[in-house]
C-alpha cells in the first residue's frame, strides 16, 4: 500500500523556528542570523556593532561554532550576554539549538539578538532559526564569483555585507561584477560595503540595523 506523505523533511525544524519567532516577537526582539564562510568577519562585525550600539540597544549574542568558546569569550569581554553553542561537528545551527539558547538569555532585557552561525557557505541558509533577517557576509579575499558558486546562500539573504573592503587595492575582486551577480540571483538583497578594520561603510550597516530595530519596537508597542 502506498501512502501519500508530501511532508517537507525540514518541517520539524520549521515548526521550532516558528516557535522561536513567536517568542522573539512577544519580547520585541529583532533577531539577525549572520552567515558566512569561516574567516569572513562575522565576529568582527558583531563586535563592531556592539561597540557602536552599546547603550542605544540592549544586545545579546548567540555564538555557533563547531568547537571552542573563542568567539563567545570576545563578546563577553565586550560586556554583552552571550550563549555559546558548540555543534560538535554539525555544520550549521538549527532551530532547536536556538530554543535552548533563548531559555538562558534574559529576553525582557534584550532588543537585538545577533546570532553568529557556523562558518559555512552551504547549509546554514537551509535551516530557519526564527530570525527576522538573514545577513550574509563575504570578504574580498574570497573572490567575486561566490554568488555563482554558492547560490543558495545568496538567494536567501536579506542583506549581503561585503567585508574587508580596505583590501580592494590588494586583491583582484571586481566589486561591480559582485553587485551584478548578487542582484542577478536576489533582487531584494541590500548590499553594504564595509571594513570592520578601518570602520569604512559601517554607518550604512548600522543605519539599516537601527531602522529594523525601530520597526520591531513600533510593532511591539502595538
Amino acid at each position, binding site marked *: 500500500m502506498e501512502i501519500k506523505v508530501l511532508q517537507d523533511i525540514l518541517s520539524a525544524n520549521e515548526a521550532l523556528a516558528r516557535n522561536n519567532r513567536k517568542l522573539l516577537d512577544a519580547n520585541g526582539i529583532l533577531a539577525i542570523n549572520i552567515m558566512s564562510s569561516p574567516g569572513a568577519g562575522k565576529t568582527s562585525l558583531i563586535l563592531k556593532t556592539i561597540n557602536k550600539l552599546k547603550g542605544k540597544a540592549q544586545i545579546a549574542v548567540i555564538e555557533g561554532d563547531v568547537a571552542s568558546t573563542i568567539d563567545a569569550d570576545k563578546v563577553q569581554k565586550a560586556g554583552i550576554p552571550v550563549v555559546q553553542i558548540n555543534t560538535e561537528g554539525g555544520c550549521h545551527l538549527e532551530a532547536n539549538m536556538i530554543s535552548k539558547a533563548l531559555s538562558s538569555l534574559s529576553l525582557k532585557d534584550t532588543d537585538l539578538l545577533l546570532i553568529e552561525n557556523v562558518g559555512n557557505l552551504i547549509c546554514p541558509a537551509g535551516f530557519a532559526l526564527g530570525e527576522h533577517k538573514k545577513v550574509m557576509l563575504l570578504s574580498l579575499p574570497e573572490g567575486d564569483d561566490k554568488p555563482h*558558486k554558492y547560490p543558495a546562500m545568496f538567494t536567501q539573504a536579506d542583506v549581503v555585507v561585503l567585508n574587508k573592503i580596505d583590501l580592494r587595492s590588494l586583491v583582484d575582486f571586481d566589486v561591480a561584477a559582485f553587485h551584478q551577480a548578487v542582484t542577478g540571483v536576489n533582487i531584494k538583497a541590500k548590499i553594504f560595503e564595509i571594513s570592520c578594520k578601518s570602520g569604512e561603510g559601517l554607518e550604512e550597516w548600522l543605519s539599516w540595523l537601527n531602522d529594523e530595530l525601530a520597526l520591531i519596537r513600533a510593532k511591539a508597542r502595538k
Partner: protein
Amino acid sequence: MHELSITQNILDITLEKAKEAGANKVIKINLTIGELSGIVDDCVQFYFDFLNKDTIAAQAELSFHHLPTQLRCRNCNAIFSPNNLDWSCPNCRKQQAEIVSGRECYVDSIEVE
C-alpha cells in the same frame, strides 16, 4: 554532518505516517530532492542504514527522485535550467534569475504493508 538530522527527520516522518496507517513494515520511502537542497544521497543512505535499526523501516529502500534547478528570467520570463555556474538567461543573456524549483526536499510517499 547535515544529513544526519535530515535522515532522522525522514525516518521520523516515515514512522509516524506508517503508524497512522497501522502498517507492520515499510517497504520503500520515496523522496523528492531538489538539486539546490544540497542533500547528498549517499550520505542519507549511510545514516539511514544506521538509524533505521530496530524500527519497522529497517528493510526499507530509499528512492531518490531528483528535481533539476529551474530558473525564471525576470527580464524576459523565460524558464530555463542553469548551465553549471552560469545563471544567465539563454534567451536574453540577462543575469536576473529567480528560482522556480530546485529547493525541494520532502517525503513524497511511503510504501508499506
